[in-house]
């Protein structure tokens, strides 16, 4: 798991690359979201384009990120889901919990 941070206006974009799986990727996602929150970001967009595998621990981490950000009056959204990630979120009916976009510009605009 490799995470790059970018900013687009007041939206913090985290580009997730690789596996969000137990013991490695899951912790990396948590840390990146915590760091963004600590730095004052309230609008966080996870760009999932580079995610190759996500397991139940990774899904749990996405859910935790979502609830943590929401509890702090922030907004967390997802963009560019590979089909393998969509399928996995679908199976546990989380696809309707997250706000998901196909296009980054559209996602960024939706925050304002």
């Amino acid at each position, binding site marked *: 798991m490799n995470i790059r941070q970018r900013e687009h206006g007041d939206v913090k974009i985290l580009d997730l690359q690789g596996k969000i799986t*137990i013991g490695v990727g899951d912790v990396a996602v948590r840390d990146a979201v915590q760091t963004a929150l600590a730095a004052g970001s309230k609008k966080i967009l996870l760009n999932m384009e580079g995610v190759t595998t996500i397991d139940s*621990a990774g899904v749990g981490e996405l859910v935790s990120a979502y609830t943590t950000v929401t509890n702090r009056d922030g907004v967390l959204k997802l963009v560019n889901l590979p089909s393998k990630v969509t399928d996995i979120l679908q199976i546990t009916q989380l696809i309707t919990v997250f706000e998901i976009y196909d296009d980054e510009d559209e996602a960024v605009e939706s925050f304002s």
Partner: protein
Amino acid sequence: MEKVAPHAHLTVVSRFESIELVLAVVDDLLKQAELNGETRHWVGLAVREAIANAVKHGSREEEERIRVEATVEDGEVIVRVRDKGPGFDPDELSDPLAPENLLRPSGRGIFYMRKLMDDVEFRFDDDRGTEVVLRKQISSEEDFARTEEDTG
């Protein structure tokens, strides 16, 4: 001459770092059976969940070993993951789709295994420990690789 079915049997130390090694072995096996990348991905994910559970819930001591056995024979993938833990009651599992559980950070592993495989069985034995047996029929056309590239 005796036929050799794709087969792997190995012990690994009970820690998350072992998952990638097991996955590499299982993926090679599924390639030997000429399964396509899509099917290999989903079977691999079920195996990840089974090993993660063995590591998380299946140790009585530090750094115990987990046994993994995988075969592809008679049109079926079978993967067995055995740990030394005390086991659990599969009837007591909570439903991850229940509204009160939907936003819980855990409790989806076995649910995924069941959705990704045809059959998931748990066996408990005081001496042998806990075993999860994952099965998937691969007789259907859609599981097989169509091209060389697809197995790569």
